[in-house]
């Protein structure tokens, strides 16, 4: 059993399940996220944070927007949260700009360390953009 204040030598296993197997949602949909922290005792955890956010990825600096955030001060090794998704931005697989939505579960140990688990999902069904062949190698 892990002692309070001790961080497990190996990262914990956080299994996350969305209520839709394909993880594709439409704007305004509710997304239900269930998670299960494996390999840890309840006394090891100090807090758990749930968040739903988007970030940009690509050739520019990354921008971040937190749509939903909550901190559970009395954590359990399993839990769930439900979030209503916004109208924008839609998930986008561009060439130099990509927009990714994700759910994050971050667990805090008594020693001060934390571990984050990130799971990408899609809002909308925008087709990926293509690199123009004439202008790029």
């Amino acid at each position, binding site marked *: 059993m892990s002692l309070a204040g001790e961080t497990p030598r190996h990262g914990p296993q956080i299994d996350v399940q969305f209520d839709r197997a394909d993880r594709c949602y439409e704007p305004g949909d509710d997304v239900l996220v269930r998670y299960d922290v494996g390999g840890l005792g309840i006394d090891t955890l100090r807090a758990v944070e749930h968040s739903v956010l988007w970030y940009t*990825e690509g*050739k520019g600096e990354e921008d971040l927007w937190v749509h939903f955030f909550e901190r559970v001060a009395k954590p359990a090794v399993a839990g769930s949260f439900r979030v209503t998704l916004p109208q924008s931005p839609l998930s986008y*697989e561009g060439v130099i700009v990509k927009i990714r939505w994700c759910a994050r579960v971050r667990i805090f140990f008594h020693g001060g360390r934390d571990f984050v688990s990130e*799971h990408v999902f899609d809002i909308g069904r925008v087709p990926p953009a*293509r690199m123009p062949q004439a202008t790029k*190698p």
Partner: protein
Amino acid sequence: MSSPPPRPAPNPFATRYTQPGSIVPLDADGQPVDLPLLLSRLRANDCCGAIVGPHGSGKTNLLVHLAAALATHEGSLGPLRIRSHRDAVGILRSILAAAAGTVVCIDSWEQMGLATRLSVQAAAAWQRCGLLVTSHAATALPTLMECRTSPAMLAAIVAALPDTGGSITQADIADACDRHAGNLRDALADLYDRFESRRSS
């Protein structure tokens, strides 16, 4: 529990994986830089030093790693970058509020005006703080390391990034390094475009 559906592989050359701090600092042979040795050298110089090298040679990346290592012992402030006079005021205020012994880390030292450089040096001396900077040319501060690049270094960086799935070859790496005259930042941006181009086709 069902596994998530397959998603498009991320571009390994996206900023998320290549921004300063995300890449292990390497030397021109592609070997990891001896950070403890650099830290002891820095301490021997009263925590003052400059990382010198041309554009895209890994100075900022090294600075970020050193700042993180310093944070656990001496305490570090930054890395900071001054882009406007407003930034300069904020940074001077931060230095004046810093504890003695803190190492102030500043990126692009040579791009700051003379007055700002002197003010930062005076503020750091007043607070008895160290000063670690990056610069394209030698400065009045002792040179801690001169950064150089090579195709071997770029190859080692690419090997540590997420898998390219075979779409980027060693020839691409050598070509990108050669085309951008050793500027690794530009070379990585070039490889980003090649990856996207081949994914599209």
